[in-house]
């Protein structure tokens, strides 16, 4: 295992930011930590990097216990949320920094830094100061600075959070390619579920300092274990045990995804409360008995256009699509 976290807690005073966490990340994995703001993702990353020490538990990297080791004794590098570029050094000096403190010769480190800058398409900006770069360029410098020292594990704290949507999407692709290219472990923190689903081999869903569920994007979407996961990853219709009993004869809390609900000729009658055009699909908010249900239908479905506000449609939910939640 590239990273093993066993029983790790982190308290700030009386406040428990990370609560008895267990986590194993394999080498070469693109692993994401997804969760709302304040759920403890950055704290876990800082514990792995060694900036903070856990209150309890152990952290191992490649089988070696590093729980009490300083950051400079760990073969891990970090891309900070705010990039943390050194403002008094120019781009190439920033990238060289890790080689410089490792006493790599001037010629060699310049060459390696340039190569790293080329990887992120910034070789032309070597002499600029960080303040003279755009957000996306700074992000690339931070990336180059971290990978130039050839870490086995790269920690990225919401690296795309500050970028606008277009840039974010193109950087997502680049990040994924970079990770394949380098063949190293990426631990990627984000609060953006689309980003996590797009990029990750596996995702851990964080909630209040605990992991709710770990799984592949597919598993998390298809088989969420809890209501929190169901709602955080994608859109979900969550039914209480009483509602499930009414609708399906299942006396448990359950969930079904909007696109698994069919609208058409058969099924229970529901009223259309609202219809929302999303481009490739249309989302309907329906009232089924006393339960509000969200359904999503492909925009190319000819019938979909006929379901107007306040009209009545037939709703068909298959019991096999139903997921039981804890």
């Amino acid at each position: 295992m590239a990273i093993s976290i066993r029983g790790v807690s982190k308290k700030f005073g009386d406040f428990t930011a990370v609560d008895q966490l267990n986590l194993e990340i394999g080498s070469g994995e693109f692993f994401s930590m997804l969760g709302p703001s304040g759920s403890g993702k950055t704290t876990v990353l800082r514990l792995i990097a060694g900036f903070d020490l856990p209150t309890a538990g152990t952290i191992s990297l490649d089988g070696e216990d590093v729980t009490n080791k300083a950051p400079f004794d760990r073969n891990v590098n970090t891309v900070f949320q705010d990039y943390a570029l050194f403002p008094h050094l120019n781009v190439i000096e920033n990238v060289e920094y890790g080689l410089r403190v490792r006493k790599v010769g001037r010629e060699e480190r310049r060459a390696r830094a340039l190569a790293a800058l080329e990887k992120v398409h910034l070789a032309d900006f070597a002499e600029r100061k960080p303040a003279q770069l755009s957000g996306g360029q700074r992000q690339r410098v931070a990336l180059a600075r971290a990978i130039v020292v050839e870490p086995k594990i790269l920690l990225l704290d919401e690296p795309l959070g500050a970028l606008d949507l277009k840039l974010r999407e193109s950087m997502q692709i680049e990040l994924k390619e970079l990770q394949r290219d380098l063949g190293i472990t990426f631990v990627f923190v984000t609060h953006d579920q689309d980003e996590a689903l797009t990029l990750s081999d596996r995702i851990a869903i964080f909630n209040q300092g605990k992991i709710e569920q770990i799984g592949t994007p597919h598993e998390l979407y298809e088989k969420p274990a809890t209501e929190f996961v169901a709602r955080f990853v994608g859109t979900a219709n969550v039914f209480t045990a009483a509602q499930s009993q009414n609708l399906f004869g299942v006396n448990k809390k359950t969930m079904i995804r909007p696109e698994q609900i069919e609208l058409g000729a058969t099924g229970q009658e529901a009223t259309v409360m609202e219809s929302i055009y999303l481009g490739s699909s249309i989302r309907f908010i329906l009232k089924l008995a006393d339960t509000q249900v969200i359904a999503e239908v492909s925009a190319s479905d000819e019938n979909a256009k006929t379901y107007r506000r306040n009209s009545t449609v037939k709703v068909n939910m298959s019991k096999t699509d139903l997921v039981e939640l804890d």
Partner: protein
Amino acid sequence: MRISRSAALVLGVISSAVMAAVYLPLVIVLINSFNNSMNMDWPPPGFTLDWWVKAFGSGGLMAALGTSVLIAICASVVALILGTLLALALSRYKFFGQESIGLMVILPIALPGIVTGLALNNAFRTVLGMQLSMATVIIAHATFCIVTVYNNVLARLSRANRNLEDASADLGAGVFTTFRLITLPQIGSALVAGGLLAFALSFDEIIVTTFTAGSGVETLPIWILNNMFRPGKAPVVDVVAVTTVLISVVPLYFAQRFTRETAK
């Protein structure tokens, strides 16, 4: 902000009056240092460089100047080291009693000089059993010089990004390398500004100095006090006053410029 013309006029008059009250006496001292009348007749009957020549030819005076500069430099260096360490400790680590210590560091600047002087005098002589000397003056000056360094560095550190130090450690740098390559460049101009201010504070200090200087230690301000009312010494004292102003103002000017340059 927009203000009416009459308000602007009133403000202008008041500001001019204040500036005049502060700077006119200084100008008079400057002019008098070239006044060829022994009794400082006003207006000056003629121009002379005699007092300047005399002042710079006086062994006692030059010795006092040397003493003052030496004390100011030593006190500033002590203040730079201790003030920086204190600022680093108080801004980068959490520990019990942190806030109280922060307050205790800046308190000496608020204490009346006479209290500081008396307290240090007692501490040196009776408690520590030390002879008053130049070293005791340096220690005494350092107590309030630390404040300027500490304040400047602390302000800079609190604005600087803490992640920079983490990033440096992350890239493999040890504690001292990080301090040298990352922290120091961040606080460099704050150190220069704090050090220059400390120098200026120490250079013209007289009250604490009086209480903590050994019998053979004569700083420039003490020399002035000793010579001011001696017959025939007044013009030379004016020369010294002008020199003192210059030596204190120049560092202040640079300190200001440094602070402004890095603030933008």
